[in-house]
């Protein structure tokens, strides 16, 4: 009981801090200096329609590289932690309920469409709301659907690892090319900016975001595959 009381006290204190912040907050009416710079300069500088994409891929590209690295690390550790539980034997696979006819047929129809949608979303990341992370998550949702339809399905870990490492390597290499040909590491102006608002524009941003999309998709797919391959306890 005393523990619950202490927890309530802590939450109360934190709630008080939040309440002060909340009462003091007035929504801004103007953009601050940084945001105004992004709003005015990202289109002439980088040729992106979606300003958030310009921030993620170019202005804060190093952060995104770090983010992809964190994601890779967590996927790798998930694989490492679960590695002993892997290789579900035929005997334990017996107990798995299959997804049923509806889900199996539905997934055959839907998986290609979902993959297409994912690719569309990350290829158009510089033009529409969307991008590599969202598109990659959609790609992985196709993998999830296949696993739901048939829990005993196995994916090639070699293929997933190949996609993951080759896209990651190309991402870093593109960043290094930026040092040579443009302003610095991960500068996307290594390719011509092209016509504003078209698919082949914004320099290397669509290329980098597609690589990120494939990498995130492979990352999530490897997590899902690892989780599904652990044996039932």
């Amino acid at each position, binding site marked *: 009981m005393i*523990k619950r009381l202490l927890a309530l006290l802590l939450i109360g204190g*934190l709630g008080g801090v939040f309440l002060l912040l909340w009462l003091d907050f007035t*929504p801004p009416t*103007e953009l601050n200096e940084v945001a105004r710079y992004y709003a*005015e300069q990202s289109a*002439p500088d980088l040729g992106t329609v979606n300003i958030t994409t310009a921030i993620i891929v170019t202005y804060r590209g190093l952060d995104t590289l770090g983010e992809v690295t964190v994601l890779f690390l967590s996927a790798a*550790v998930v694989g490492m932690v679960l590695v002993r539980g892997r290789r579900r034997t035929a005997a334990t696979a017996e107990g798995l309920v299959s997804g049923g006819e509806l889900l199996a047929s539905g997934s055959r129809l839907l998986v290609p469409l979902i993959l297409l949608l994912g690719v569309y979303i990350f290829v158009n990341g510089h033009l529409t709301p969307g991008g590599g992370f969202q598109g990659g998550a959609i790609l992985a949702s196709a993998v999830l659907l296949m696993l739901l339809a048939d829990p005993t399905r196995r994916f090639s870990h070699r293929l997933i690892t190949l996609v993951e490492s080759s896209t990651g390597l190309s991402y870093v290499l593109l960043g290094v090319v930026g040092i040579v040909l443009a302003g610095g590491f991960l500068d996307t102006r290594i390719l011509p900016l092209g016509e504003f608002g078209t698919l082949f524009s914004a320099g290397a941003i669509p290329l980098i975001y597609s690589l990120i999309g494939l990498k995130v998709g492979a990352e999530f797919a490897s997590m899902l595959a*690892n*989780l599904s391959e652990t044996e039932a306890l």
Partner: protein
Amino acid sequence: MDALSPLAVHAAMATGFLLILLGFYGVLTQRNILRMVVAFTLSTTGVNLVIIAIGYTLRRTAPILDEAVPLAEASARIIDPLPQALVLTAIVIGLGITALMLAYVYKIYQVRRTLDIGKLSELKW
């Protein structure tokens, strides 16, 4: 509608703060590790909601240029794009962390055959 907009921002922010508090309370009081993981993801969602609410400016639109938002008017028409970029990062990292926590929970159950945090007392002092 216009009169309600400031309220909407404050409501979103209050919801975010409440989710954070709820999540922390869950982490502190729940005994089942799986429930602690769920509580943790609740507070992650709360943090994201608060950051998005901070970046919102009244009567403005998404930071994407098109016919409705030409470049010349961009700085007067769009909301702050930076919090959105931050939250995009935070969501992805949050997912990675959740997967990691679930993998650890699996491992703990595999070794100890219990999900009760009270029975895992090696690090207790």
